């Protein structure tokens, strides 16, 4: 067990190192330069451009820049080039905004997918299964932005509820319950959007896992013992079918950093996705690189956790 953890950590650190190099190269090799140091930018005089270049170390060779950047990152000093705010602080703020969206979306996805998938598998071929399957296909195929607008039209026309942004403009003085409900209303559609695609994919996966497990010999043994169907399905089959999903649990982690750019654009939600998008447009290198780095850390941590969980949960691997 310990040797597995040790090996894993080492491998992942090496991967992280390479990721940092690759992302650095991608950013710097791309054409165009950050807006402040663009010589074409009319707002800045040549002297100012030169000063910024010196300050951002852009005149030094690439590997020196790399060392500077990561030095700053680990000491927490990185500063956004666009608006001079500390990058980490900026990311943290936006993260707090994205967090409720992410949490609600993930909760909805995971709590709804399993019952749907399991029921589809047990009553395979029935009406429930076929309609759930068809709805899943539609959900996977519908473009997110289109569905967003459809929902917006529906909700605004029939419920007369504001949906854009974090909270309604000017509601600051209303009592706490109003504030709370307002937040909920604003949170509802974006997280539903994020959840629908997820439910579709996850429930199909749950269904196929359940079907595979139900075809195994030990289920036949369980039935031959005279166990009632509920015990056969929910005790014997489910426990085996859930194994891969425990590992998927670890893979939720990377989702923390990736807000969906499209959803956040449509709903004017000031989240991580939009921040990264704006940073890309402005060539705000520190922000882009930091977001990349954090996302890579989360992905690697997520895979590590899911490997660990798999070790814990499957008795065949433990010993």
């Amino acid at each position, binding site marked *: 067990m310990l040797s597995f953890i040790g090996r894993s950590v080492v491998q992942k650190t090496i991967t992280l190192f390479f990721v940092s190099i690759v992302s650095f190269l991608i950013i710097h090799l791309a054409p165009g330069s950050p807006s402040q140091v663009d010589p074409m930018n009319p707002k800045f005089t040549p002297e100012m451009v030169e000063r910024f270049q010196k300050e951002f170390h852009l005149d030094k060779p690439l590997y020196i820049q790399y060392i500077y950047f990561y030095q700053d990152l680990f000491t927490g000093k990185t500063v956004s080039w666009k608006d001079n705010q500390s990058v980490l602080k900026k990311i943290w703020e936006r993260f707090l905004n994205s967090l409720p969206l992410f949490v609600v979306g993930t909760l909805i996805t995971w709590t709804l997918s399993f019952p749907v998938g399991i029921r589809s598998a047990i009553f395979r071929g029935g009406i429930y299964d076929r309609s759930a399957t068809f709805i899943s296909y539609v959900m996977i195929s519908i473009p997110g932005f289109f569905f967003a607008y459809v929902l917006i039209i529906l909700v605004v026309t029939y419920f007369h509820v504001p949906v854009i942004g974090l909270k309604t403009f000017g509601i600051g003085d209303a009592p706490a319950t109003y504030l709370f409900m307002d937040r909920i209303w604003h949170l509802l559609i974006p997280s539903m959007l994020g959840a629908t695609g997820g439910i579709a994919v996850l429930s199909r996966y749950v269904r196929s896992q359940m079907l595979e497990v139900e075809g195994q010999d030990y289920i036949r*043994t369980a039935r*031959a013992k*005279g166990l009632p169907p509920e015990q056969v399905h929910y005790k014997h089959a489910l426990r085996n079918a859930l194994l891969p999903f425990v590992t998927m649990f670890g893979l939720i982690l990377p989702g923390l950093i990736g807000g969906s750019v499209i959803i956040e654009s449509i709903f004017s939600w000031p989240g991580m996705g939009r921040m990264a998008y704006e940073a890309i447009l402005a060539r705000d290198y520190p922000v882009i690189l930091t977001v990349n780095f954090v996302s890579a850390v989360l992905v690697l941590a997520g895979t590590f956790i899911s490997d660990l969980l798999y070790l814990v949960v499957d008795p065949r691997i433990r010993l």
Partner: protein
Amino acid sequence: MDERPMTNDRPLLCVENLKVYFQSNGARARAVDGISFEVREKETVCIVGESGCGKTVSALSILGLIPTPPGEIVDGQIIFSGQNIIKLDEKAMQKIRGNHISMVFQEPLTSLNPVFTIGDQIGEAVYTHKQMETEALFQYCVQLLNDVGIPSPKQRLNDYPHQLSGGQRQRVMIAMALACDPDLIIADEPTTALDVTVQAQILALLRSIQKKRSMSVLYISHDLGVVSAIANRIYVMYAGIMVEQGNTDQIFRSARHPYTQGLLASLPSLSKRGKRLHSIPGTVPNPAYKPKGCPFHPRCRHKKLSCQKEYPGMCDYGEGHLARCPVLFKPKGFKGSRIQGVK
């Protein structure tokens, strides 16, 4: 049913004209095509046949474990303790499974749930049919493991299936089958996946358990050597039908169906050393595309024109020995008569 006078009470299990068909890929596979057999109390009955002859399907249909979308019991009756259990609904069947009739399967590793301990799985088998408290349950399971010959049972109860050897796993399966003291155990090729030495141990175990608990055993196998060791009566099955039945002596010493004779001749033995191995030419027919008339006739060296035209009935050789081959049946010198239409 034959007209021999019954020396016992009515049989424990009586299968009459069972037909199980499967719908697959546009064709109707007649896996079991009208078989009849019975198991009486305290006896070991063996069904022998090659792979694909329908013996496992017959066993599974007794317990109602045939998956119903592709499979279907089209005809026949299975009478257990006086009632036709084909007609029973799911709840009633659950009371029988594991309780009065239990089953041991062929592959012990895949037949045990890998994520539950042995103790869990055996305990479950007991608890479903008899309510017991935890402590009593534990002791009962330890006793069961003792009965099937597993050393240090208390520790073994906390182990997972993959931590045991093949032979031990099969013993655990047998323990699970014995848990509620069933009247009948169906064993579907339980030793095929095991080494020969372990095979011998498991067979000895089955014999001793049967004597101790006065149960009946329906043993399914393709291995005539195994069958000769434990069977009281034998049914030989081919392509979904019974081709011969009788007790062990009758089958092994005076087999009357060409298929049985071929099987026995194919057994290697020291007396045949240095001679050419005998084999039955041809292959088992596809259950969806069976030959007309006698299903064995394409491979038979005694075949006549009538074999292709009419489906043969059972010929009675007396004392419970029946064979489905009119060609080899010589009426003079034998008691009994050729019974038309015995399926």
